[in-house]
């Protein structure tokens, strides 16, 4: 077992552990703790991306998710005063429904992964996700989606300003 394999197990365990702590932290029910563990999940997932040789996406993941999105989350958590949320308990009915849903979708996943056995002669992966290759593809074949996404971001920005503006009337 080489170093990348060990690193895979480390990052995978870290991702799943922090993922559990996001949704059900036994020590604290404060949303800020959840947000912090989500940051850890995202960073260890960036580690998995590096192991998959998707270097550019790993950087984008840390910059956009752990940087921008989580700061936005924390900002909103601080903005809202959520003191009383800590007292509420999880309802048993919700827990049962959630477990049933998760069991159902887990069955589908397990069956899918079982069915799609990889053929043994699959060539070893040689793909490198460095920025140059990605950028070349992005500005040739995917130019139109790229421009559409820029319009989408503009629309989102205008929408957010409109939504969060205080009513002057």
């Amino acid at each position: 077992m080489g170093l990348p394999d060990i690193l895979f197990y480390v990052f995978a365990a870290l991702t799943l552990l922090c993922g559990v702590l996001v949704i059900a932290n036994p020590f604290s029910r404060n949303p800020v703790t959840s947000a912090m563990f989500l940051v850890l999940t995202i960073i260890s997932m960036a580690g998995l991306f590096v192991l998959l040789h998707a270097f550019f996406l790993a950087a984008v993941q840390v910059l956009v998710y752990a940087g921008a999105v989580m700061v936005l989350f924390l900002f909103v958590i601080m903005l809202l005063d959520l003191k009383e949320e800590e007292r509420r308990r999880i309802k048993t009915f919700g827990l049962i429904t959630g477990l049933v849903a998760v069991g159902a979708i887990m069955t589908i996943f397990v069956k899918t992964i079982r069915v799609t056995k990889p053929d043994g002669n699959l060539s070893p992966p040689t793909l490198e996700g460095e920025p140059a290759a990605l950028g070349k593809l992005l500005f040739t074949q995917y130019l139109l989606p790229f421009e559409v996404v820029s319009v989408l971001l503009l629309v989102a920005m205008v929408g957010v300003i409109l939504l969060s503006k205080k009513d002057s009337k």
Partner: protein
Amino acid sequence: MQIGLEHYLVVSALLFCLGLLGVVTRRNLLVIYMSLELMLNAANLALVSFSRFNNNLNGQIMVFFIITVAAAEVSVGLALIVALYRKRQTAHVEDLTTMKL
């Protein structure tokens, strides 16, 4: 044992299930939103691993777009939550069961 596609897919499936469990069981709007992010990330991981093991860069382009759209979605969603909080003074789904504000 060589780390292959299945290993990454198992991690991705488990992470997706965690996100789903969070969405269904938690009652705080912000935590529900974070669980949604977890599910999106699980899908991203699956796409990147497919891309790597099929020697095809299109999956990574897809992830790039997903990250962009997710950022826009988070900003709009959080603005909606703030607007809702201003009207109702709560971010708890059980207090938000009526359709009329």
